[in-house]
């Protein structure tokens, strides 16, 4: 099993969710996060007052999928989250040792 974490632009969330739904991925965790990569922050001036915007709003999606489906999921996220501009985000793929459904204690891929 693989865990896929995707940090994406907030306005791309609906599009990414639709793309994942389109390949049969319904279960995911979505978190509102803030951060920056190479995009870094920038300074804003409003009404003569300057302030630093160093952590930009992003959305983090997390999902655990069978290993055989990981590439397909990554491709779906890539295609739907991309604008081509700095700040589009990142995808991380991690190994998952075990998954357990708390309700009935199913284990492994059956728990996904």
């Amino acid at each position, binding site marked *: 099993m693989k865990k896929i974490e995707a940090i994406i*632009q*907030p*306005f791309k*969330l*609906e599009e990414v969710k639709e793309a994942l739904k389109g390949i049969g991925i319904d279960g995911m965790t979505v978190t*509102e*996060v*803030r951060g920056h990569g190479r995009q870094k922050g920038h300074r*804003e*001036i*409003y*009404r*003569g*007052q300057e*302030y630093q*915007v160093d952590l*930009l*709003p992003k959305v983090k999606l997390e999902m655990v999928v069978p290993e055989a489906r990981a590439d397909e999921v990554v491709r779906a996220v890539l295609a739907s989250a991309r*604008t081509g*501009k700095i*700040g589009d985000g990142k995808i991380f793929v991690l190994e998952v040792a075990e998954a357990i459904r708390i309700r009935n204690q199913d284990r492994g891929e059956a728990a996904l």
Partner: protein
Amino acid sequence: MAKPPYESEREPLRRRFLSEGDAAGTLAEHSRLAERIVREAWDEHLAAAFPSGLCLAAVGGFGRRELFPHSDVDLLLVSAQPLESSSALAAFVGSLWDRGLRPSHGVRTPAECCRLEPGRPESCVSLLDRRYLAGDQELYARLDGALARWLRGERLELARSLCRGARARHARFGNAVQQLEPDVKESPGGLRDLHLARWLERLEEAPAPVPSAPAPEAAPWSLLSRVRCFLHYRSGRDDNRLSFEAQEELLEQGFARWRDPGELMRDYYRSAREVWRRALGRLEAWEGRGSSLWIEFRAWRARVSNAEFSAARALVWVKAPSQFERDLGALWRLFEFAGRHGLPLARETERRVEALLPRLRAAWAQGEPLWPPLARILALPRVSPALRAMHQTGVLKTLLPEWGEADCLPIRDDHHRYTVDEHTLRSLESLEELPRAADPLRRRLAGLLEEAGDPTGLRLALLFHDLGKARALEAHTPHSAGMAAAALGRIQAPPELIEHVCRLIERHLDLSELMHSRDPEDPATAQRLAQRGETLERLRELTLLTYADSSAVHPGGLSAWRGEQLWRLYLAGVRQLTRELQTERLPRLAAPSPQLAAFLEGLPARYLRAHSEKAAEADLRLCEQALKRGAAAELAPHGGYWSVRLAVRDRPGLAAALAGALTAFGLNILRAEAYSNRQGMALETFAFEDPHRTLELNPGEAERLRVLLERAALGRADVARLLANRPPPLRPSRRARIEPAVSFDSGASPDATLVEIVAEDRPGLLYELAQAFTAAGCNLEVLLADTKAHRAFDVFYVTAEGRPLTPSRQAALREKLLAACRPQTTS
């Protein structure tokens, strides 16, 4: 022979309840069944072991014979002496569990029963509902006597402890009765509050409360109990949350008479509101009792009273009820008082207002002018306490029947937590709390609120923004705007205000939609935003409307994350709209007349967004007059400020001359806009304050000012000489002073440089800035000046010799502008 489990014995009760819905009968039957099992267990395990010195009492809900299907069975074992661990007692409790009961028991001596544990008044108050079940009757009589003596002395302390606990519980639920998925036991207005009111009423009994059969209960108890009973049967446990799914399932029961979940919930909220008010009345009565001298002194010191009303214990009371009842005008003054001091009405005051409603309806049906007193309330620094009081007493729906459609109206979605009326009032509250916010984002939004000036339009837009959900849950916005137009038209609000409110309502979802679907950094988003926001002023109000609306959806409705998104979007819109002042000029349009088309050509696109066709035609007529006599000005009062529109052929130094003439007349400029069209006609608009009421008190002065402005526009008045006679302005205190900031943007337009200035406002500032531009050889293509409190925000599009400013000219101009911002004044 093994005894049947409790579960199988109560199954017939479940079936009967789900078909007939008789909560009172079901609870009584459950109590009887539990009582029989408890007595059997007593006889089997304790009767022989404790022939005396121990008795058993039913307390709490079991004591009241209101045992819900999956509630704990509250038992008190009263022991003459402190009881060490007892195998008989363990067997007694164990057998109850084995039969399927959920006993919640305590073992105490009579003395221990008469002890109030800090923060746990329930254990004492549950004894008010005690009844004897088994065991030593003499001991039970001793308990009765001890409790009566204790309550005579400690009832105040017990009541206060109950009040504190109730207030904390209410706060946990945001003090909101109208939750979309309420807890029918613990939420404000739930069964717990019904019991609270009953306990607090019984603590009044003299000489001390005695256990008695519960009085027959009214409608609220019947509905709340029926719903709770169903929830217990539905989930098979002590689950009291009336979720959306539970609402749907409740409708399917044989006894349900509601057509849809909305009808069920409205019925529920009406009952809960009745309970809540009864509980609040009791809480207020006890909280005001027996205060210490120091608390009384503080209340006296903090009291804000006038001849008609007093504020005591953070509530508004009527001082002379008979006089209040005679004068319906006092009602408006009452709500104004509540709003001005940010206090809710005491329950007693609410009752007095409710009694006036029939007379109020009759009087208002006669066509009494209703807009002026409402406008006064809407302009208060805090309007929500007044509107909430008007809502709770039924005055608001009497005034605006459209509001009545939203009364207790549930919204069934996954993010709203409150009904439409509660959500609306909370949105107004969240806006009013902004100035006291400490986090950076809300501080910025508080700045916007300050800049927005008169909050009446924004508040009315919030008041009506979701009312359309009563008519169409999807696409409710046009309905909301229509209801606002009808209601405000009926009470004779100014037509331009109604139009403004409707425009805000129609667009109130725009920013939320863009936040979720568009990249704020994308120029296309900014353009779209500018098209929808139309003007900087409207974008500002839409941003605040979105903030207030989102904040009131649920307690965490506008997280810092979401707030940052909103702010980024606002900034993108501001940048675009500021840029468009110069770059977006109107082309030749298909106007109703060729004269109007020629007049509009070349004006900034902002002009059409901010002016109706009627206003544009009035400006055209002004330009036609100016063409005949050189310049034409028109003044108009607006209740609190004046405005002047002036048309003249454009020339260098025009803005400075007009700003100087206004300053020389002792007037304080609040806003200014200056544009020119393709024909070279300049249209200048100034809004200004008349701090000495010169124009109001001397009718001839308005005409003298008009003439002076026309002469100044044509360069025939020596503005510098007039200004030399003005006394230097006083500056605000050192702490309130604002450091001036000047910024240049050469990328905003291909033809001109954008100059933004933020400075401490003072009479004559705009004149001196305009003079500094003129002295530096610059021409003002567009001017947009605004003032909030003592902070001035000025935007200029400037050219020199027909081109944007060079870097060296910018550097020289910066110094001149900064110098103009820091005049030699008295401090």
